[in-house]
């Protein structure tokens, strides 16, 4: 696994999270839940906070590994994933910089150094701004279900991205996000359950 592939992966997760946290706004009209309405709800949100429990199902392990912690999003461009268990770790994406801190080790990378990946960042910002056109340049979007119980599927258009991640499923009820599932190309998958705890004060 190259560093670039790893980055693509972690950024994709953050993007999905950002999308998820953005979806804490008031529910739109009950029927005819469309991507357009979803985008509109996303655009209204300026900040969010949630707890998460993530389970990774890996072929190499007998049981899934579990991690938990907090997620924070602040408009326009700051996303944090703070893992508390099993070991403290933080991923912070702000503007162009992704910073990973684990124990005493910290490293930062600039997204724009990774051309194709930078497209994803633009796409998430576009998502949060409700800019569907930009989002669709990076992912093929499929929305299924009703406003009460919907699933948004993101399929990477970029070939290199698709070599790592097959698809991302985001499930929610009205404005509440429940789960993000990431299916990897090697068959491993992770499921993150999310409980929103409200906007950031």
């Amino acid at each position, binding site marked *: *696994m*190259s*560093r670039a*592939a*790893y980055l693509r*992966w*972690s950024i994709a*997760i953050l993007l999905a999270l950002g999308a998820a946290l953005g979806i804490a706004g008031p529910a739109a009209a009950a029927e005819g839940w469309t991507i357009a309405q979803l985008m509109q709800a996303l655009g209204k949100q300026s900040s969010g906070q949630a707890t998460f429990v*993530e389970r*990774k199902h*890996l072929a*190499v*392990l*007998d*049981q*899934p*590994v*579990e*991690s938990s912690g907090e997620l924070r999003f602040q408009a326009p461009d700051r996303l944090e994933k703070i*893992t508390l268990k*099993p*070991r403290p*770790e933080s*991923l912070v994406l702000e503007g162009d910089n992704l910073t*990973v801190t*684990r124990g*005493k*080790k*910290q*490293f930062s990378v*600039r997204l*724009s*150094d*990774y*051309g194709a990946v930078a497209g994803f960042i633009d796409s998430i910002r576009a998502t949060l701004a409700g800019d569907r056109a930009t989002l669709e340049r990076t992912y093929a979007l499929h929305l299924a279900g009703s406003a009460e119980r919907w699933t948004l599927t993101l399929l990477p258009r970029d070939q290199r991205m698709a070599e790592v991640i097959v698809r991302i499923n985001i499930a929610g009820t009205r404005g509440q996000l429940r789960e993000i599932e990431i299916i990897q190309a*090697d068959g*491993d998958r992770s499921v993150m359950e999310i409980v929103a705890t409200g906007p950031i004060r």
Partner: protein
Amino acid sequence: MTRRFVPALLLWLAFVGACIAVAAQTRFTTDLSAFLPEAPNEEQRVLVEQLRDGMVSRLLLVGIEGGDAGQRAQLSRGLAQRLRTDAAFGMVANGEPVHRERDQALLFTHRYLLSPATATERFTTAGLQQAIGESVDLLASPLGMLTKALLPRDPTGELMQLLERLDGGARPATREGVWASRDGRRALLLAQTRASGSDLDRQQAAISTLRSAFAAEAAKLPAGADLKLLISGAPAFAVDSRATIESEVTRLALVSTAIIVALLLFIYRSPTALVLGLLPVVSGALAGVAAVSLGFGMVHGVTLGFGTTLIGEAVDYAIYLFVQSGTRGGRDTFWPTIRLGVLTSICGFGALMFSGFPGLAQLGLYSIAGLVAAALTTRFILPQLLPAGFAIRDVTPLGVRLRGLAAAVRKLRWPLIALACAAGGVVYAQRDRLWNHELAALSPVPPAAQALDLALRTDVGAPDVRYMVVVRAADAEAALQAAEAASDRLQPLVESGAIGGFESPSLYLPSRARQLERKAALPDAAELRARLPEATHGLPLPATRLEPFVDDVAAARERAPLTRADLDGTSFAIAVDSLLMRQGERWTALLPLRAPTTGAHPSEIDTAAVRHALEGAPGSDALFIDMKGESDRLYAGYFREALQLSLAGVLGIVALLGATLRSARRVIRVLLPLAASVLVVVAGLLLAGVALTILHLVGLLLIVAVGSNYALFFDGKGDGDGPPPGTLASMLFANLTTVAGFGVLAFSSVPVLQAIGGTVGPGALLALLFAATLARPSCPAAGAPER
């Protein structure tokens, strides 16, 4: 032609012939490191070696500007590809992952021998349990993406251990897959020449190769793509400086010669006199080159450039001869004065010869040999060569007018004294910033080039090798062991944040002893297999899945230790070659330190902590070197020495004058104008914002040397109304040629030459003015009748 003269002429011809023969054999150098002092201590020797041959001296920083990002990246790839196949370059890096696969394969294959974590405890049941537990936890992190595929073979996370150690330094940004500046407008490339920093011819060839490779690649781009190549780094500086010095020395010599020839023609109105007048100059210059060549084995270009200024002084002797021999008293009156002037100059420059700075010593020897030869030629050869009835035009009317002028100038006595006092005040007030103590002040690199270098260096994140630990040993293995001992001391400093990190050749190539130790720490297959079930108890990773791990450890136990040859084709080979080198009979390992980026003191290294940590390290000859501090200290040491030597020279001059003039008042009268000129020049430089370097000091010494002639003439036994008209005229001519010779230097772009020119040019003029003003307010005051 007298009979006594024939042997003298033959002697002179033989001397000139010998000088030409020596000069023809002379090796001229413009390698600036030749101007570096001979290092007095171990730290400074390392510094000088690094400047001369170290990795920094071989690293070219290349920028590509213009066009669009895609074109720049294409050009960067093409250029790198060409350079990588060129024997002139050892390493070419532009952000392309050319070595990545081989690097990773090597790291993974040899991970147990390379990893600092390999120890007996790590392979006990408890050690394995902890290491495997950490690896499983890591899978929960996004970082687990990197490790999960390797888990069955590397459950203890040895590869991550290695990557963490190796992956510390700042990396350049990338655009379109190649390195770029932060703003993305410039593609970047690093190239290391194989030629050492002191091999300027091969460095120059490498740079030409780089340029033509760029041109060839740029030609592939569509027309209209206007891409520009920027080159910086020590080799580029050295090669450019050489070119600059060469062209400057030639140009300056031509210009000052032309000016002086024109001036002499104007004065003499006689081509014969001109040719004869240049004889002492040529003899002097040849004698200087020959003396330096014999004394030092080579002549530096800067010495030569400086030598052109000697034309300015040596030509004076002939002027004095021609002008004054025509007047009454002839050469009998002026020769003792000239002799004393030459002796004063010898005192001044003689002191420099004892400098440990080869450059200064060269200047001293050159001046002394040159002046002596010129004076002797003027005294013993030139008069005999003058054709019968030789005369230049009569300068008496000019002299008489000058006398009037001198009398008028004497009225300015008090304003000039006030000026000198004010200058003294300025110098005193600014005494703290009088001297420039940084070696960089002597750098011949123009500010624009320095700015470009800084910009490229910042973009690349090229190691600013300011601090390093150096260990030396009899062979490579011992040097690696010493590097490991030092690394063991440094590692805790990384954890505590006193330093950001460090490099060591032993990271890529551990000593054989260390590798064998690590190998011995690995359990055999049966034992390891027996420990795994308990080690994985309670983990979601069953021991049965770790059979590849058992196989890899067993293979590592069989594998021969890694050697330098195994690194070929990886980027580690370059790293080891830059950090571990043979110097003479000994091997040197370098451990450059990185400043921490965060913490209490970001971008600062806690030098006290490093020194403390290294104290008493086994084989404790590890040197901790602050390259910049050391170079400044080195320069400061030589500066102090030069200052002391100059003072000794001045004392010598005072003693000489005292012995000759036998009158304290006359000595003071001769010295006063010189002191006043020096003060005014120094004050002028200070007010212009220039802090004085060692070269300014040489310039000041020259003012004293040249000015002493004027002061002596004004002090000489005139007819009670100052020097006779002929002498006055000859002094003016002499002064004009001196000012012209040095004045030209002031416009040089080589700071070394510019410093001397800017000091001596105005100084010589002032010395004449002060000498005329402060001369004995002689008899007219007593009412002697005007003629």
